[in-house]
Structure formats: C-alpha cells, structure tokens
C-alpha cells in the first residue's frame, strides 16, 4: 500500500486538520467529536444543511461546506459512516432556528446513524428532516433489498438544496427541492482499478490488466459485472444507456451532465468521456443545459468514473447557478 499518510488510524483526523488550515476563511473544525462547519455557523433564520458519511470520497462532503451549500459535514472513518454523536453535534452547531436538513446517502450504516442522531436532535427540540439520496441505477431496486446507493447525485442535491436554503426557503421547501433533485438524478459508475482502504492495506478486489468493473459504488466494492476493457466511447454508452432508460430521459429534456472521476483518473480522460456523452445525448435530442466534469465524489485513488444525468427544471437551473463558495465548488462570489 503506497500512500502519503502517517499512522493509518489518524488519516481522517490529520487530513481534516489540513483541510481546516487551508480553508480557515470558509470553515472551522470541531474535533471531539469531529465535524467541519461553516465559519459563520449557525446562520440565523437559515435552514441548516448537514451531510456526512465515510471519508475517502473527498471533496465530498467537507469540500462543499460554505456559502450556498452545506453548513456542516461529518466525516466518518474511511468508508465508514460516522456515529450519531458528531452528527448530533453538527446538527446543533448549524441550527439557526429554521430547522436542519440531513442529506444522507442510502447506505444502511449512514441511514441508521443519521436516524439516531435525528432522534436525539428532535429530543433536544431541533426540527430535523432527512433526504436519502439513491441515484445509482447499477443497483436493482426492490422493496426487499437495501435499495439503490446514493452516489454522485448527492453532490447535485447538496448544491441545489444549499442554494434554496441560502435564499431563505423553509425546511419543507428545502427538503422538497432536495427530494426533487434526487428523484430526477441517475448515476452509474465503472472502475479500472480498485482502491486501498488505509487500515485494510489491501485492494478491495483485483482486476486483470484487461478487466474493469461495471456498476461500482464509491466504496471500492466490486461492481455488478466484470468485463474486458473497451474503448472509451463504448464505456460511456454502457453507463449512459441504463441511466437514460431508467428515469427515462428523452428528447427535449434539459439535463445537467456530470462526468465524475473516482479519484485516480486524469482529467484528460474525463473530458474525453464527456465528449462522447455529450454526443450521445445530442443524438437523442437531449439538451445539455449545465455540465460538471471532475473529481467531485471519489473512492480514494480508484481509477474510474461515473456519469450522472439530472433532469432540470427552471428552478433547479436557477439554484444551480446561484452563488456558491466552498473549497471544491465555487462561483458567483
């Protein structure tokens, strides 16, 4: 295992400390229990947005704390949901009197720990709502399973709901727009290489030089299918087709096209993939109204990418375009 780390047990603490030092203008960090919070929190009268989950997906979530997006991020150990204590502490720290929205990726651990924290916060008189993101079409959904994973769509939910909160929407309104974004977002990912969790020290799976995993999540877990490496355009189609069929997306739709890197794939390749995705959408008469390309939700050093489509409406576009000032997403101020 080759990593720029000291003690594997201190990876998250030390990295968060570096993040806080580099972005002292945007955030501060509480250490016991650990969470990252907007420098000016709580913002009086504003709905507070809290997200969190296992570490290793950077810039998610701490990179999205700031004006117009999250009020706090709660980092767990690598790929491990945080416990209720820091979620509760973060919830209290961002409560400006208008209630708090939890944005939770759909994993059993995240859901259960956020649930407990929400119960505890409610017991202390804070109004909490939760939105559970589940945009991953690689997972077959059913009443009898854990359901779909929350993946890259979560970034879009955080930006758009964050803008709604920033303009003064109520908790119900912010939760509603977050739900709407999640309901209109679909993602799918692939991996060329596995990643190595620091405390595990070994890759999550092994792949031959010509093999890739299709339908992966963001935790270094194997995907649904192992196939031979194919040209980029074909790989893009393999991700895009199930996404398009699922919502479904069709001619005349306006979308946000989001090509996300898993952490170890260079931008050169992400933009090359974007080219084909844009072409394929064009062929179907789907209009790309907004784009996002880069490493926005990752699985440590994994090489691979995911594609997300979000079907936009006017309000979503307006909220997407609204100013945001975070370490990882910034425009308009």
């Amino acid at each position: 295992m080759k990593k720029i780390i000291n003690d594997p047990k201190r990876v998250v603490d030390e990295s968060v400390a570096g993040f806080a030092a580099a972005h002292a203008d945007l955030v501060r960090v509480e250490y016991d229990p650990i969470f990252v919070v907007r420098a000016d929190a709580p913002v009086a009268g504003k709905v507070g947005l809290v997200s969190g989950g296992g570490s290793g997906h950077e810039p998610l979530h701490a990179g999205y704390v700031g004006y117009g997006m999250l009020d706090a991020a709660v980092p767990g150990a690598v790929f491990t949901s945080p416990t209720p204590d820091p979620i509760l502490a973060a919830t209290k720290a961002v409560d400006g009197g208008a209630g708090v929205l939890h944005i939770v990726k759909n994993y059993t651990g995240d859901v259960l720990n956020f649930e407990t924290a929400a119960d505890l916060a409610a017991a202390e008189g804070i109004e909490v709502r939760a939105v559970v993101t589940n945009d991953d079409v690689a997972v077959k959904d059913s009443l009898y399973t854990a359901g779909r994973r929350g993946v890259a769509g979560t970034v879009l939910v955080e930006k758009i709901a964050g803008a709604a909160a920033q303009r003064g929407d109520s908790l119900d309104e912010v939760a509603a727009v977050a739900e709407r974004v999640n309901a209109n977002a679909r993602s799918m990912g692939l991996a060329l290489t596995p990643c190595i969790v620091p405390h595990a020290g070994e890759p999550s799976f092994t792949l031959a030089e010509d093999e890739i995993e299709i339908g992966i999540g963001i935790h270094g877990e194997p995907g649904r299918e192992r196939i031979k490496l194919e040209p980029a355009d074909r790989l893009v189609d393999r991700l895009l087709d199930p996404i398009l069929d699922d919502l479904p997306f069709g001619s005349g739709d306006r979308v946000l096209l989001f090509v996300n890197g898993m952490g170890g794939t260079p931008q050169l390749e992400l933009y090359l993939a974007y080219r084909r995705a844009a072409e394929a959408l064009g062929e179907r008469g789907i209009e790309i109204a907004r784009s996002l390309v880069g490493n926005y939700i990752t699985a440590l050093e994994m090489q691979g990418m995911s594609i997300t489509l979000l079907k936009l409406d006017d309000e979503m576009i307006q909220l997407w375009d609204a100013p945001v000032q975070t370490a990882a997403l910034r425009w308009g101020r």
Partner: protein
Amino acid sequence: MGLDITWAVDWVRRSAETVAEHRTRLIALDREIGDGDHGENLDRGFQAVLPKLDDLAAGSTPGDVLKLVATTLISTVGGAAGPLYGTAYLKGAMAAGSATSLDGPAIAAVLTAARDGIVARGKAESGDKTMVDAWTPAVEAADAEAASGADARTVLEAAASAAEAGAEATEPLVARKGRASYLGERSAGHRDPGAESSALLLRAAADAAVAAAGD
C-alpha cells in the same frame, strides 16, 4: 448456576480479544462483498469498551455491562454494524433488567431481545445474508435449550454453535440487505462478515460461561 457480573465483564474482554484476533479475517470477508471495514470498526469499538469496564460502579449488573457496551459501540463503531450491534446490546440490557444473575431462560431472553432489536432496526429477514442469519438460529437453539431446563452455560453453548453454523450457511446466499446486496448474484459464495462476527461474539459469551463455571 446463573451468570453474573463477572461473566459479563469476562464476555466483553473475550469479545475484544476475539475481534482483535480475527480483525484481519473480518476485514477480508468484508472486502470480498462489502467495503473492507467490518473488522476495523468492531475492533475500534471493543477496544473503546475495555477501559470503561474499570469504571463500572460497585454493584453493577450484567445489564449495566451490556448497556455500557451498547452506548460505546453506538458512539465509536459507525457503519451498519455500529447501530445494529448497539441496538442488540441495548435491547439485551433491557431484557436483563437489574438481575444480578442470569439463568438459562434469562440468557435466552437476552439473546431474543438482542436479535429482535437487530431485526427492528435493520429490517432484514432470515436468508438476507446478514448477521440475522447467525442470530436467529442462535436464538432458536437457546430457546430450545432453555425450554428443556438447561443452564445458562449450556444455553450459550447451543447459541454459539448455532450461530457458527448460521454464519457458515450464509455462504451460498445472495444478499438482499447491506452492502453485499449491491453485488447481486456475485455476493453468493462468500460468508457474511457480520454473521461471522456475531458467531465470534456468541462463542466468546459461551467461553466466558465455561470459565465462570470453572470458578
């Protein structure tokens, strides 16, 4: 002869020991069909319980020990296993109540409450390839022994053996809950890490009971 606070404390120590010993194996199991953190998470949790055992007030009951485990796991483990085991120990503690000694039926009741807590929280059914597949046979075996008048040690022996068999029996299953469910058919052929750790914890309980009997 019932099991008292000494047993409960010994169970926790043996739990921490067996989890540390099998940490790497649990990580490896979780890497195959999950995200490779189960052994690390549980190890962190039980290591956090150990120093707190020294602070237990005089006159503490087995139920107090279980509650201590519950709250510590909840606040240190995270992931799916943290809340699920936390709930299990919490419900077990409630079933144990303020009794200073637990006999066969009481132990069976503790295990039943723990299992019910896991199911209530995680909504998994038998056969979903989760820790429930270790706990449910364990509870059934414990109930049967307790009903036939067995002592606490025998009840725990039966539960541990059934949990071990249950964990092994998860191997061919296709997961429907937890991370392994994302793999679909590819989850078959691997043992569920949570079922395995459940079996380890119940074996630790039985071993502690044997040691207590030897006192």
